[in-house]
């Protein structure tokens, strides 16, 4: 049966160098539950290493957790990717790490990158420079995501830095994005920046579906922006259908 599902897919954990230390599985899931979110997505910078812990906690509390990653392209554009299957996450991780370079994270400058278990215990640190850019082009990233049956969303397109419109001027027509994400600030801020209209629709001419998520790096930011989907269940495939308004699915 089709019903409404409220979701915030863009949430960082303490693995992201810019993520708060208390962005640990239990705190994140409990906050989502308190807010009445039906599902969340975990999308750390260039890494999936905390997802499996959050998924376990999500199961315990009845909050569906989609595994994802926020990949930084060579052009410094952030692309969100979500997958149903764990093997897809493992595979995308492998490719992203291969293309991330060998630089190490300086945690005094950028922050710690904590790997954590389902009991919120620190079990390690990621040494890679996760905040850095990969050598993958936006087009390559989107193709890669689709080849692994994933969902590809351009992150915070209304933001000047790391948003695709800010970095690349406009969204390339050939790019097969499933949606674009606008940040929580989108409603309150002027949409004209640098003399160009930061509107995904007018900039592309291809009417990409628009979703909005929080991009939370702190507990209190979770759910600041969310999107309601009309689905049978929360899966990448169902969300894809909703973005295309197929089979009665939709974005509300």
């Amino acid at each position: 049966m089709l019903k409404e599902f409220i979701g915030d897919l863009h949430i960082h954990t303490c693995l992201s160098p810019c993520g708060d230390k208390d962005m640990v599985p239990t705190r994140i899931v409990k906050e989502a539950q308190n807010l009445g979110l039906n599902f969340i997505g975990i999308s750390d910078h260039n890494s999936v290493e905390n997802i499996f812990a959050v998924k376990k906690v999500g199961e315990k509390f009845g909050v569906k957790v989609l595994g994802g990653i926020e990949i930084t392209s060579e052009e410094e554009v952030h692309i969100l990717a979500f997958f149903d299957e764990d093997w897809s996450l493992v595979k995308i991780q492998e490719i992203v790490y291969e293309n991330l370079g060998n630089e190490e994270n300086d945690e005094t400058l950028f922050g710690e990158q904590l790997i954590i278990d389902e009991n919120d215990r620190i079990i390690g640190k990621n040494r890679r420079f996760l905040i850095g850019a990969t050598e993958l082009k936006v087009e390559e990233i989107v193709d890669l995501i689709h080849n692994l049956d994933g969902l590809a969303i351009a992150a915070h397109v209304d933001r000047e830095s790391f948003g695709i419109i800010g970095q690349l001027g406009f969204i390339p027509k050939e790019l097969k994005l499933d949606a674009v994400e606008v940040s929580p600030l989108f409603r309150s801020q002027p949409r004209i920046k640098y003399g160009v209209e930061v509107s995904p629709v007018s900039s592309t001419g291809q009417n990409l579906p628009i979703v909005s998520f929080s991009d939370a790096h702190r507990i209190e930011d979770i759910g600041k922006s969310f999107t309601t989907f009309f689905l049978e269940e929360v899966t990448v495939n169902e969300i894809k259908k909703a973005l295309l308004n197929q089979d009665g699915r939709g974005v509300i």
Partner: protein
Amino acid sequence: MKLKEIVKELNLKVITAKDSLDKEVIGGYASDLLSDVIANSKDSNIWVTLQIHQNIVAVASMKNLSGIILVNAREPEKDTVEKAEQENIAIMASNLPAFEVIGRLYALGICGKKQC
């Protein structure tokens, strides 16, 4: 100053639109944020950037820029080269970083908003 003079003075490698080097250069702009280039570059500017995505060609066309200088010996992507040939936009590469490229352009009398 014409593009071909800049190519010679800065020892640039011309990658695309070799026939367009008679274009006149009036001032320059440097930025890697393409939205910023759309907003702030001026007609006939030469543009210094490290971005190699094909959108640089569309931006240069849209703003009628005289040409694009890629810094740090950056190689444009294949589709960027194809688009640039189609649009007759010269892409030129320098082995130098942006700071040096811009400094040398400035020394040649190519300036930004105001007179050098």
